[in-house]
Each structure stands twice: as structure tokens, then as C-alpha cells.
């Protein structure tokens, strides 16, 4: 049994353990989202939260296990990478509730979805839907027939963002071209802002006016490029307006904070149940930022068009692809 696992928590305060993905606190992305959600829960109803930042791969499971063994009510793994570890641990600790942000739900041979264990909440975000909307936004506001996309590590996970984005572009501008590029082929590709900046600069120079990034810290370079070129960038995961005020057209937000807060309150109210929690446009789990900062950048007509598209997606009239 992991260290310090002795004391059982007292009272009815919820004890929550969160294990971050690589990047950890301060990533200005989904780790921070989870942190914000947990802090909100702490303020709202006194949830006691412990955070763990694992190192290499084998520490992920160890981190989750340490928290589970300490008798936490809820253990959250932030990132798709925790999927297998959560599945495994949930079986060993049937009395602990687990949640996985971006939990990757698998499909069996017949194409049927394999449900996670009963004590696991799979918090899934339909990034492609949010990406679709910012794609449409980019094409409508961009003012050129070219829009850009910068991905981090060249993997199918990021292809999902690209696919939704492309579909959104095409939906409003069939003859628009999407220039999609990736920063690299190793996890470093999420931490290489220098590369991100160069990719963005070359896209802007090719006539792109708006670039959407899904590349972690690499995207900070995209915003730098936007500043220098006086063009637009679109943020990802969180509202990234502050990275380059005036040059961030919008952000495709994933309300990880809401999802985390939500799952913590369910545990608090003893209403937790496992299963797949889809956070799409319909659930306001994903979306795009439209607020006082960027209102001026988005004409009302465009805004209306986006809302119409959103309604279509929610209504199922448009199906957004999740792979390219």
C-alpha cells in the first residue's frame, strides 16, 4: 500500500486527488482548467484537493494509486494518457470514484463502445465540434481564402482538432484552403514555442490571416507571430486571450473546469455514477469565446452564423468528423 495511506478522512468534506498530465500546473490549458475547477469546488463546498505531478510514464499509475490508497473519495486523471491506468485501478479500488479528463473510450470489434468501469466517469470533450465553430469563424473573419492550423505532436489525437477545424472552414467557404502543420514528432513538440512561431510566420506570409493552434506551449509562439504580423490567432482549451490581447480572435474552450467541478459536486452530493459524460456543444462542454474582449473582432453577422451552425450541430443536422 502506498505511503501515508493510513488516515481515513473525517467529516463529510470531499477528498479529491488530481494527477496532472505532462505540463502540469501553469500550462494555461487543460491542467489549469482542472485546477480551476477543483479550486472552485474547494471554495464552494470545502472540497479538500491534493495535486500530484507525475514524472515519467510509470509514475502516472503510481500517482493515481497513491491517492486511491489514501482513501480519497474521488481521484481524477487529467489527460487521455490516464485511460488505461484509470481502468485498471478502478477495478482494484471499487469503493473509490474515478474520473478521467479526455478519457479515451475504446470501441470493440463490432464497433460497439466499451463502457468504462462503473466507478469511472469518462469526461469526454467533443473538441471537433468546438474546432468546427472556430474553423467557421476563421474562414468568415479571415478575409482571405487561406486559413491556418498549427498542431503540436503529429498524432491522431491532434488530428481530431484539425479535422473539425477543416470541416468548419469548408462549411462556410468551400473553396478555402486550410494550411495545417505540426511542430514535431515527439512530446517536445508541445513545448517548442520557437517552432510554433516560425510555423505561424510562414503561414501568415503565405496569406493566412487566422491560425488556430492545438499545440500546448508551442502555441504561445503562434500568438507571438500573430502579434508581430498583426494577424489573428485562435487559442485552444482555455481562453487564451491574455497571451496576446488584441490578436486572439477567440479560443476553442474546453470547459475542463466545469466538468471537474461538476464531477466533484456529484461526489459531494453522493450522486456520482460512472459512465461516459459527453461534453459537446450541447452541454456547453466545448465552445468558443465571445466576450467583451473580442466582441469587436467578430461582426454580428458572423456571430449569428456561428450560432446557427452550433444549433445545427446540437440538433444533429451537422455531423462533425473527428479524424482526417
Amino acid at each position, binding site marked *: 500500500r502506498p505511503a501515508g495511506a493510513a488516515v481515513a478522512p473525517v467529516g463529510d468534506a470531499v477528498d479529491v486527488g488530481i494527477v496532472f498530465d505532462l505540463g502540469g500546473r*501553469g500550462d494555461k490549458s487543460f*491542467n489549469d482548467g482542472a485546477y480551476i475547477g477543483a479550486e472552485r469546488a474547494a471554495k464552494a463546498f470545502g472540497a479538500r484537493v491534493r495535486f500530484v505531478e507525475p514524472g515519467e510514464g510509470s509514475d502516472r499509475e503510481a500517482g493515481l494509486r497513491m491517492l486511491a490508497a489514501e482513501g480519497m473519495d474521488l481521484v481524477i486523471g487529467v489527460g487521455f494518457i490516464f485511460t488505461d491506468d484509470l481502468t485498471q485501478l478502478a477495478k482494484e479500488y471499487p469503493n473509490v470514484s474515478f474520473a478521467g479528463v479526455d478519457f479515451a473510450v475504446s470501441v470493440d470489434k463490432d464497433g460497439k463502445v466499451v463502457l468504462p468501469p462503473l466507478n469511472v466517469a469518462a469526461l469526454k470533450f467533443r473538441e471537433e465540434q468546438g474546432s468546427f465553430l472556430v474553423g467557421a469563424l476563421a474562414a468568415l473573419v479571415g478575409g482571405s481564402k487561406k486559413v491556418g492550423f498549427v498542431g503540436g505532436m*503529429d498524432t491522431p489525437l491532434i488530428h481530431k482538432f484539425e479535422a473539425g477545424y477543416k470541416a468548419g472552414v469548408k462549411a462556410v467557404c468551400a473553396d478555402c484552403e486550410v494550411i495545417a502543420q505540426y511542430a514535431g514528432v515527439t512530446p517536445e513538440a508541445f513545448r517548442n514555442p520557437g517552432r510554433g512561431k516560425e510555423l505561424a510566420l510562414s503561414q501568415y*506570409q503565405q496569406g493566412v490571416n487566422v491560425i488556430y493552434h492545438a499545440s500546448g506551449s508551442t502555441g504561445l509562439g503562434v500568438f507571438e507571430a500573430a502579434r508581430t504580423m498583426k494577424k489573428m490567432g485562435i487559442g485552444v482549451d482555455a481562453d487564451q486571450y491574455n497571451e496576446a490581447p488584441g490578436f486572439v480572435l477567440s479560443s476553442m474552450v474546453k470547459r475542463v473546469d466545469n466538468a471537474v467541478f461538476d464531477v466533484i459536486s456529484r461526489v459531494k452530493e453522493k450522486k456520482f455514477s460512472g459512465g461516459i459524460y459527453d461534453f459537446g456543444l450541447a452541454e456547453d462542454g466545448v465552445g468558443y469565446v465571445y466576450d467583451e474582449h473580442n466582441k469587436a473582432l467578430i461582426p454580428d453577422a458572423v456571430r449569428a452564423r456561428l450560432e446557427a451552425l452550433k444549433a445545427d450541430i446540437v440538433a444533429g443536422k451537422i455531423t462533425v468528423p473527428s479524424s482526417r
Partner: protein
Amino acid sequence: MTLLLFLAQTIRIAIPYLFAAAGGALAERAGIVALSLEGYMLGGAFGAVIGAYYTGSAWIGVVTGVWWGIMLAAIHAVCTLRFKADQIVTGVAINLFTVGITRFLLQLAFDSSSNSPRVAGFGGDNIGGALALVSNPLVWLGLATMPALAFVVYRTTFGLRVRAVGEHPLAAASLGVPVNRVRWVAVLGSGALAALGGTYLALDQHQFTDSMTAGRGFIALAAVIFGRWDPVRAGLACLLFAGAETLQIRLQAAQLIPSQFVAMIPYVLTIVAVAGVVGRSVPPAALGRTTD
């Protein structure tokens, strides 16, 4: 126009390589293996951001960035020159140490595991693309580095001594040349130069990001070897590698070959170079030999 843009991008990408490769060439010419360039760069990037953050001045950031490089190089020098530690082991350790210490201090200073707040920098806010290039003093400095280093190595007394010390330290010592002092200067200089590469990266981004050098130090080392330890040729190698990268950026959209393969180009070229396929590359004879 396209050509101009291509050139400008190549140069921007090459700047960190040029600084770091200059540092690498200097150290290796003096007989010290430059495996720790990556660490110096990362330390320089972090130092620059710390300095710029607390003073609000990019130039002070340059100073603190260089200072960080010099401090890390001093650790290297103490270990290898004073205590005769193995240079390769020390180099690997410096890299590991720098990743850890920058992360730790990032936590301590900014309560973040991955990013610093935005700081002052060069790459100005209100200047268009190509102009941003010429308005960044570090770009000019970077371009001047290799010719300057060539001048130092081949035309100055210090350079003559560096070359002597890297080839046959005993001979230099027998003539009263203070071998260890020359090496100290070379190592500290390499730390300062490589750190400038990191400083450029960080100030160009106005921010420090965990591990943001992303292996550039190794590419720079590759350029030194590819350039056969000659500053000018190493500089050209930097431009070549940067050109390949630019080409990849420009061609990637077309997705002709998987990006993974393009990413390998500098590494493959280096292997080809050290295997002697493009002319024999003979390292300084005393390279790596401060152990006894």
C-alpha cells in the same frame, strides 16, 4: 519575395544554432567536449526571462541570460578542469541538472510547471514580419558571431593559444601558456555564447517555456562537427540545417514526406559527416582529455 521570406526565416531559425555552435566550436577547439550546449541554452533562456521579468528590461535579460550560461559553464569547468571529471559524463549531467533546476525555479518563482509570464523582449510588437528580423539586435549579434569567432580563433593571441591547448596542452604548458586558464575562458565563453542562443529564443517569445530549447543544442553540436570545428564552416552548417528546417516548414503543408523523416535530416547528415563520407573530420587531438 518568396526567396526573401525563405532567407529571413532561415536566418531566424539559424540564430540560436549560430550562437550555440559558436560556443561549441570555442570549447571544442580548446579540447573540451561541448555536450552541454543544450543545458547552457536552456539556462540562458531561463536566466533571460528572470532578468527581464524582474527588471522589465530585455537588455538586462540578455545580461542575466549570459550570466546563467556562464554559471552553468563554471560548474562544467570546475568539474572537468579542477577535478578532472569525465567531460562527457559532466556534459550529460549539466543538461539533466539544467532541466531540473529551471523547472524547480519556475515553480518557485511563478508557481507554474511549464510557463513563465510574459516579459519584455526583442521581436517588437508593432513591427511587421521582415522588419522584426532586422530590428532584433540579437539577430545581428548572432550573424556576427561566427565571423567574429573565426577572427578570434585564427587572428588573435588568445585564439592561437586555444588551438594549441586543444591540440597539445603539454606543449602549450611547456611554453608558459596557462592551459587551464585558457580552457576556463573557452568554457565560460562557450557557456555565454550558447546562453545567448537560449536568450534569443526566450526573448523572441517573451516567455520561458519548460524545455523550450527542444534539442537545439544537439543540432548546434552537430553543426560544429559537420563544419569540422571551423567557425565559418560550422556557421554555414547552421545555415544549412536551418535551411532544411525552413524547407520542411514551407513544404510540410504539401505533406510530401512524413514530417518525422524531415526532422531527421540534420541528425542523418551528422552521422554521414562523422563517418567521413564528406571528407575526414578530425577533431582537436586533445578533445575530451582533461581526465588523467
